[in-house]
């Protein structure tokens, strides 16, 4: 899952990016509104974390412009949390709102909820028959036994599970699992798929040659 963090306060952006990376997200950062809008329009992020008070172009404008082309879930971060501001943000098309200072744990939970909702899943548990994916705990169970996956492997499983029965192209997987600064070697995805198959069974992820990968639920 790929997340964009638009925040001008360097130390805060750094902490957010690091936290999200440790949770297995592919993270891009932007330090002003213009850069944030450019990136948000260029990629299909799973969530954008957007500060309101930004230099060059403020968060409201970024949100308004982004909504003309994309439905990307947006979580607004702001130091101003009057009712007026919250209503304005939600009306402009933001999906959630978090006032500074906030807890990282809450931010992560809200991001998970946003991704789940945009995938159309109401519950945080995805049942794939033999295998269950708990998106809240970011854990995978096989025959009720927990399976150890790396963050990147989990992200791959989660993304395919949210869209089970549908073929996800390699490009889509690359876009959502790797950030700009990640070294995206062409066979990196194949390595992750191979590792997941080793842990969860050869037929857990199926290859549609020339198209991509799919998990049949």
């Amino acid at each position, binding site marked *: 899952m790929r997340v964009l963090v638009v925040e*001008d*306060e*360097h*130390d*805060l952006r*750094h*902490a*957010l990016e*690091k*936290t999200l990376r*440790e949770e297995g997200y592919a993270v891009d950062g932007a*330090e*002003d509104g213009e850069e944030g809008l450019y990136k948000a329009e260029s990629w299909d992020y799973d969530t954008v974390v957007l500060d309101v*008070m*930004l*230099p*060059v172009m403020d968060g409201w404008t970024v949100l308004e412009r982004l909504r003309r082309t994309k439905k990307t879930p947006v979580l607004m971060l702001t*130091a*101003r949390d*009057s009712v007026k501001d919250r209503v304005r943000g939600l009306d402009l098309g933001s999906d959630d709102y978090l006032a*500074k*200072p*906030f*807890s*990282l*744990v809450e931010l992560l939970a809200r991001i998970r909820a946003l991704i789940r909702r945009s995938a159309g899943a109401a519950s945080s548990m995805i049942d794939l028959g033999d295998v269950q994916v708990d998106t809240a705990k970011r854990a995978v169970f096989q025959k009720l036994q927990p399976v150890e996956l790396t963050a990147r492997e989990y992200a791959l499983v989660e993304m395919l599970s949210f869209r089970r029965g549908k073929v996800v192209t390699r490009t889509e997987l690359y876009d959502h699992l790797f950030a700009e600064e990640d070294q995206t070697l062409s066979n990196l995805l194949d390595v992750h798929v191979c590792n997941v198959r080793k842990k969860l069974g050869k037929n857990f992820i199926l290859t549609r040659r020339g198209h991509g990968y799919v998990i049949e639920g």
Partner: protein
Amino acid sequence: MFSHSIRWQIQAWHGVLLMLTTAVLLVAFYGYERQQRVMRIDDRLRTTLMMVLPALRPERAGEPLGRPPPPMQAMDPLLDDFLGVFPFGEPPDGESRPPRAAGGRIAHDRERQHLKNLNESPIYYVLYDGARVETARSTNAPKDVPPHDERLDAGETFGRTRDGMRELLHFQPNGESVIFGTSLAAVDGAMEKLALYLTGIGAGVVTIGLLGGWWLATRAIRPIAEISAAAEKISQGDLTQRINAQETKSELGRLAVLLNETFERLHNTFEQQAQFTADASHELRTPVSVILAQTELALMRDRPPEEYRDALSSCHRSGEQMKQVVNSLLELARMDSGESVMNLAPNYLEEVVEDAIRFVEPLVEQRNGEIIADLEEINAMIDAPKIQQVVSNLLSNAIKHNPDGCKVHVNLRQEGETATLSVRDQGEGIPPEMLPHVFERFFRVDKARSRADGSTGLGLSIVKAIVEAHGGTLSATSTPGEGSEFIVRLPLTGKA
């Protein structure tokens, strides 16, 4: 509750005054009317007296007054009628009468007849001699008619009222006195009716007056009610309320306009205060967010020492930022409350400016810039540390906004009784629409850049407050792309 209402107070006073006025008027009218009626009775008595007086002349005193008169014309006993027989205006005294030898006898007979007729009329008479002994009386006279108390000159009359009777006393030249009287019963009856009638009128007038007063009081008080309703809402915290003042000419209209203006100012002050608080909390929330996020992240799992070091230095930077904001806020608050008093003392301004230049030297070196100073020697009443703060603040602003390696010009001139200090940079300038706001608290022309510099957005507000506390002015001009100039004008003698 009622007794405190202005309307009820007005109504009560109005009612009391109205009743008093009406009562005085009606009582006066009643008294006048009664007096008029008594005077009319007096006139009748006097007329009768004059008509029958010759019959009571001394030469007739010996004759029995009660003798039947010779048959003459039929006399109506009613007073009005016998006034008709003897038209008023006939001279009552003897001199103008026909000579006694010619027709006096006949005339006296006629008068004696009148005297007799009085017995049948409402008018009675009693005659007293000089020793106040009754000598004659009409048959209809009441029993106890007291004689006169004091003598008056002959020919004079005076009236008296006693026991429902009106009497006229007349003194004869020979010392006799005669009393003519009549009952006041008819007058009293009429006056009683009049009193009833007047009471009715009075009650009506007071009722109408009270109703009118109530209506007037309601009308007069309506604007006050509107004002107090609006004021009540405002006191409950709704500062957007205004009094609906339709007309602004009357006293209450002017009051409403005045109150509206006051409410407006209050509203603006509150909004500014709220804005200031929101800005201040925003300035503090950002560093708090950093500290919380960094510590939370650091504590999520075990990490190598350099990551803890990064987190701690990030927290330290945020703490420094908060310290600056808090110090600036406290300084501004002290200025606002007047707690921060300027210690004015004679100082050489150019020395203070030189100190400030030395203070910002490290920043100048860091930016590879240069400060070009052209300073006149000026002695002025200033608070030296505060003015040094002003100058170094303006200088570091100028350096920060200058491109690396550019110059900052500082000029100090004396113009009359004013010292003028200007600080000019060669930076990007300030857009004209932002220029009026640069002294506002937390205002930043370029938010990102100022944050990165560790600025609080309060520097120029503090500079302005210090300059104004000296009785001086601070102004700014700017040409975008060429640079900005900040000008401080200080009175040499301190507070002007």
